[in-house]
């Protein structure tokens, strides 16, 4: 198991009484558990230990959960290359995993492990104690082979937090009943374009199953769908550049030895300890900040437009269904573009802050993602459970 975990709890543990008593949950080292290493998968934060529990950890512990270890992660949780998220679930070692979802990492890891991968809507879960990279896009994802457990965990960790002032004063809407003849699902035409023949065949067969069951399927057009990727790429890089500015080796993290002045120390420490993919992402962010600021402003403006467009789509239907290509296990390091391409089908939910759930995909070439309106996270999970009971995704 050591190849999956970056840290395993060794100290004895007395679970509190609660709904999640004896459920084993893993985190990744970008989610603070007091006293545990929290290097966010980066050498720049090597030997950093979390001072406090993240709010979500505090709430899970109080509900009786056994936070049993941290799985290996990609640097700052960006992309899934090097991440072992989902593996402990695949091996049935644990009941759930918490994984930050910056552009779809939690969902793709889940598909790879043949479990459910859920990204909650934006502003539902406290970010206190989460070592994030793209504050306006990311949310703590939940992976489990049982969608009902995801719902239980979500209800426990969601909601206002005195330590996170950024959380809007909103609460999750109660789950609505899923009725085949009444519940409307939408398929975004542009999200289906570009599928291979095999992938298309699979996706069509899945849609066929629910049509047979009497569901209404509405075809939707979202001509700017492809812009989501550019917008995420530009805004994400700028936010990452800001977020990573604190890793200056002054107060914590690793410091390159033998440098003569602060500038040298800063450049050499960051040069030596950030990985290649993160460095290129931060470099891109700094480029937009310093050289192409107007492009960044355009990206923010376009994002607002995209959010409105996506809201129109979710208003016309109850849920959106999109295909998600199964990530390949690349042996070579991925470039920034290749990394983004992996998440082409998932990142629109991050751009718009919507809840999204990837269904277990088994050995299929392609998986299914369902997506709901903001605050409809619980209804979305109900739909996931319903479809699962119908033998979906298999």
């Amino acid at each position, binding site marked *: 198991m050591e190849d999956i975990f970056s840290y395993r709890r060794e100290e004895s543990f007395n679970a509190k009484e609660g709904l999640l008593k004896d459920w084993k949950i893993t985190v990744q080292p970008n989610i603070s558990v007091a006293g545990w290493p*929290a290097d966010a998968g980066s050498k720049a934060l090597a030997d950093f230990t979390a001072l406090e529990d993240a709010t979500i950890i505090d709430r899970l512990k109080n509900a009786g959960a056994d936070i049993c270890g941290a799985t290996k992660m990609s640097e700052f949780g960006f992309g899934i290359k090097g991440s072992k998220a989902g593996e402990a679930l695949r091996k049935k070692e644990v009941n759930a995993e918490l994984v930050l979802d910056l552009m779809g990492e939690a969902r793709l890891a889940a598909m790879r492990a043949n479990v459910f991968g859920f990204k909650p809507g934006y502003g539902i879960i406290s970010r206190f104690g989460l070592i994030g990279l793209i504050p306006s896009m990311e949310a703590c994802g939940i992976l489990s082979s049982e969608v009902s457990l995801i719902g239980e965990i979500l209800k426990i960790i969601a909601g206002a937090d005195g330590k996170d002032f950024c959380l809007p004063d909103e609460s999750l809407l109660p789950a609505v009943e899923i009725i085949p003849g009444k519940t409307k699902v939408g398929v975004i035409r542009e999200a289906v374009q570009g599928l291979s023949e095999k992938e298309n065949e699979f996706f069509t067969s899945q849609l066929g199953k629910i049509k047979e069951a009497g569901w209404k399927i509405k075809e939707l057009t979202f001509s700017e769908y492809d812009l989501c990727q550019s917008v995420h790429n530009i805004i994400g890089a700028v936010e990452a*550049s800001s977020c990573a500015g604190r890793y200056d080796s002054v*107060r*914590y993290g690793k410091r390159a030895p033998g440098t003569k002045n602060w500038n040298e120390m800063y450049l050499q420490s960051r040069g030596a300890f950030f990985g290649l993919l993160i460095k290129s992402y931060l470099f891109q962010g700094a480029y937009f900040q310093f050289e192409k*600021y107007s492009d960044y402003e355009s990206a923010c403006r376009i994002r607002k437009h995209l959010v409105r467009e996506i809201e129109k789509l979710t208003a016309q239907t109850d849920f959106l269904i999109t295909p998600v290509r199964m990530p390949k296990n690349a042996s070579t390091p991925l470039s920034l573009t290749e990394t983004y391409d992996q998440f082409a089908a998932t990142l629109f939910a991050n751009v718009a802050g919507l809840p999204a759930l990837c269904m277990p995909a088994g050995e299929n070439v392609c998986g299914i993602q369902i997506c709901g309106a903001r605050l409809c996270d619980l209804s979305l999970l109900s739909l996931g459970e319903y479809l699962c009971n119908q033998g979906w995704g298999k």
Partner: protein
Amino acid sequence: MEMEAVIGLEIHVELNCATKMFCDCPNRPGDEPNSNTCPICLWFPGAIPQFGRAALEKAALLCLGLNAELQPKSAFDQKVYYYPDLPKGYQLSQAHLPLSRGGWIEIADEQGKPKKLRIHHIHMEEDVAKLLHEMEGRTPISLVDFNRAGAPLVEIVTEPDFRSSYDAMEFLKALRAQVRYVGSSECSMENGTMRVDANISVRPKGTDQMNTKVEVKNMNSVRHVGDAIAHEITRQSACFQSGEAIILHTRLWDPEKKATLPMRAKFAGPCVPDPAVPVIELSAEWIAEMKKRLPEMPAARAARFSTQYGMTAEEATYLSAEPDVALYFETLIGEGIAPRTAMHWLTTQLMPALKEKKMELASCKVTPSRFAQLLSMLAQDEINANAAREVLTHLFDSDETPDRIVAARGFKQVSDPGALCSLIDKVLAEQPAALNDLKNGQAKAIGFLVGKVMQASGGKANPKMIKEMLAGKLDSYNQ
């Protein structure tokens, strides 16, 4: 060619909140280095800034006190630059949506005419850490003190309405008075709670061109701001006249050399909207509530003093410049002291004594009620002015009431006609020349004799009665 200066100021004011802007650490930068820090102001991974209400209220009051328009929506941006005084690679500041826009301060110009100097906007921002560069043996080391990191600041950016160092100094004095009134800051340039940068350019008088400006920093007093601006105007005018190009740069004021010297160009980074700190939305009700909390401002108070108490504009302005002085003054009046007596004794006796003793009006032992007791004894001729000044010195270091001090130390004025009469007779016997003058009807002798009698009484005699009695003698000799 006659030249004219175009000057704008950027003024940082440190708000006197109990805590920092985004965390609950005490806002006391002077404490033991790095004692007032936490994961938020050190920007540990996973920390989330929590914008404090106190900072918002103090900043809003400051804006209203400067006649500025609070914006219904303002937001924090990240001012990106990399330097070890910034624990996260950017400073949280309001670059795009400031807390307030507009505003003005009225000063009296050099001819005494009122002049409005406009404010462009006021925004909030966090202070940065303090760097100390030292030597450890032969190795240079840099130390960072994060006590000041995250301290609440506002920056007041003016329009380029200033034409002289006089304008700038008057503006700063009025600004200081107004901010102290609303209670948001002490605005002390000496203590660093007010820091001023001046942007200066010159042009031929009568034109409206905006030439390349030079920023001047590092002035530690209002006086220095005036000196630095005056120097810079002279320097730039000479450059202009000789055809030398002025380039955009920053200069530091050197108070020793009394000159501005160029400094290394500053690297200005971008300002990116911050995704973590929520947008600040101010409701009309909240703004109205803040306006209600605004005290009577110095200009309004001076106008009232002048009509209500019959003071000159200068007197009224002086008394209303500091809120605690104005309050002290009006408390004395509330205790029944005549306005002119209160003003006279406050400004010519109490304030200079405080300055000499390096004490604060609010915390000294001479409370308004004790001072008022003293002044009523004076008004009722129980003591004379000499004695009152003496008693005042005792009030500073004794807790006794003024009348006890007067009784115990024998300051009571001698107003008994019999006693005074024998004193006068004694003095006249010693001063035959003056007596002779008196007999010859020369009134000028009276002044001299009053002094002598006062002296003979050890300063305790009632000078008014002596004068009257001597005048009576003069009359009786010359009937």
